[in-house]
């Protein structure tokens, strides 16, 4: 019944969000609408970026796709999340587990805290390998086959010293290595979609570059889709084909990355690009989005497709 989940189906997008709303509790009796009627599509093999300023709802959107929202019963999700055409809003935990096991691999922001400190890296990667692959390779889940697979994924994620890394605990690795371990965990299930949420904000510029390159290569090698969440336009520019721009919980603009960056149509995107450029271009004056403009964006969001 669920075997279809990982097979591309002609005409159906891999991920399809329509009118997604997410309300999260923030305190005893208050809540926040973190995501407001978001429409978003990711096709097979596509690389999609999601940008927007801090707190605009990027992570919540990403987590909705992986079913990793907080487990509190006060979290309310409405609208539709379709993964390979299957409706996931209100789906039972088992279905979500299936999706997470096979379809969506997630890479998180902080490489230290997102690895279990008490478990060796190798095991953490191994856990991510669905047994079927080993069964298929005839090894029947036996240890060495599993180990070999672990080493393979670690190497693929840019860790040539796989044996040693697998035997390490996370704290024994550098930030960049840890981030690559997270990549290995995400790709170990050979997912249809790699979902990376600010995978490098915690890293140095130099390390960031290496990790991004690894991610780029791995995704290309596996031919999976990529959804890259970041507030750094420069990062998204180099990695994705298509980009969504979020502001205050809504998607305000969408289009091919090059086009959006070159000719932004929404006022917010324009202003954002202007201020980013003002920081890097030697000749332009520093530009910060005026408050009046921001208030307007927040109040009357307009979607530019």
């Amino acid at each position, binding site marked *: 019944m669920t075997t279809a989940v990982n097979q591309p189906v002609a005409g159906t997008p891999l991920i399809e969000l329509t009118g997604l709303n997410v309300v999260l509790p923030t305190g005893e009796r208050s809540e926040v609408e973190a995501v407001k009627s978001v429409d978003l599509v990711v096709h097979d093999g596509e690389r999609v970026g999601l940008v927007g300023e801090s707190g605009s709802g990027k992570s919540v959107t990403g987590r909705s796709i*992986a*079913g*990793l929202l907080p487990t509190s*019963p006060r979290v309310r999700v409405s609208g539709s999340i379709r993964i390979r055409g299957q409706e996931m809003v209100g789906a039972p*935990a088992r279905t*979500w*587990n*299936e*999706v*997470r*096991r*096979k379809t*969506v*691999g*997630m890479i*998180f922001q*902080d490489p230290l*805290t*997102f*690895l*279990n*400190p*008490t*478990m060796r890296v190798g095991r*953490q990667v191994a*856990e*991510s390998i*669905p047994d079927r692959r080993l069964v298929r390779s005839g090894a029947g889940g036996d240890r060495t086959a599993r180990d070999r697979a672990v080493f393979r994924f670690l190497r693929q994620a840019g860790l040539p010293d796989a044996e040693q890394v697998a035997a390490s*605990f996370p*704290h*024994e690795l550098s930030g960049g290595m840890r981030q690559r371990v*997270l990549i290995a*965990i*995400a790709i170990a*299930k050979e997912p249809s979609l790699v979902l990376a949420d600010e995978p490098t904000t915690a890293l140095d510029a130099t390390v960031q570059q290496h990790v991004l390159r690894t991610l780029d290569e791995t995704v290309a090698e596996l031919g999976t889709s990529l959804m890259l969440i970041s507030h750094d336009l420069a990062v998204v520019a180099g990695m994705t084909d298509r980009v969504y721009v979020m502001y205050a919980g809504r998607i305000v603009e969408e289009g091919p990355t090059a086009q959006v960056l070159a000719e932004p149509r929404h006022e917010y995107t324009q202003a954002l690009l202007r201020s980013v450029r003002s920081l890097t271009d030697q000749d332009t004056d520093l530009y910060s989005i005026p408050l009046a403009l921001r208030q307007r964006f927040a109040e009357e969001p307009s979607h530019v497709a």
Partner: protein
Amino acid sequence: MKARLFHYGRLLLSSLILFIAVITVLFFLLEMAPGDPIQTLVGDVPLSEAFRAQITAAYGLDKPVWERYVLYLGNVFTGNLGFSFGTNNEPVLDLILSRAGNTLALAVPAFLISTIGGIILGSIAARTRKRWLDGGISGGAVALFSVPNFWFGMLLIMVFSIWLGWFPTQGKSPYGQPGIGFEYLVLPVITMATSELAYKTRIMRSSMIESLGQDFVDTARSKGLSSSHLLWRHALPNALLPMVTVSGYSLGYILAGSVLVERVFGWPGMGLLFIDAINRQNNMVILGVVIVLTVVIILVNILTDVVYGLVDPRLRAQFSPQRTLPPEGRQDRQSDEVAA
């Protein structure tokens, strides 16, 4: 590895200093205390001078304080804790060891029950957070944590011994028989275990909640692992870390708490010996019990440190004592919890 050895070296040294500090403080405290131990020994009758002189000499009390202190300190390290007043020639250590078994007979089961029970109940509560089961477990834990344990013991006696007649009220075995009777063990062990169980449940619950809220659990979720796998394989090992510390402390509290519990149940352990010694100003025995207790607590602390180092891979390379505090680090309890 070198750092680790260095660490243990420091730990041993500071434990030693602590140990000497405890002996010193207590020794002089007892020295300062009012009351004439010799008179107390002889009883409430006039004491002849000759006899007083003999006793003083027999127990070496005629030497100046500091000399006795140095002598005592030296003896302690050779395992000689002096002689009990009265029960003549009985070395304090023998006296204590003859009682220690009885106390351990209560403390060990209480320790095991409270630790294992606390881990299980705390995990269950954390997992079913905000539902009735959690409410029941955590409410019950706070309640049991707030009951004075001697009163709890009294209530148990009242209900199960006096009204229902299921268990004996006092003692450790039928009179005149050696050993420990199981039915004698039940109520005191329950009494001893409850408040510890309550405390550990609370710690375990909050540490489990914290653990379940950690980022790496999200990574595990993202692998599509089942929720029981998450709970037992990922969250539990991390949540157990604070329990190592708490359990380490708890043995000390249980032992100190035996003073009250043994009194309630007339259990002839170290606690009763201690109260008895205090009432009779049997200074060497007071000191001896405290020393034995201190040694146990210090050893358990060291053991805790070692276990912690083994359990938490992060500590195999480096040490940060902050991390060894329970997550409710706010209430890292002092010894005094015994009354709880």
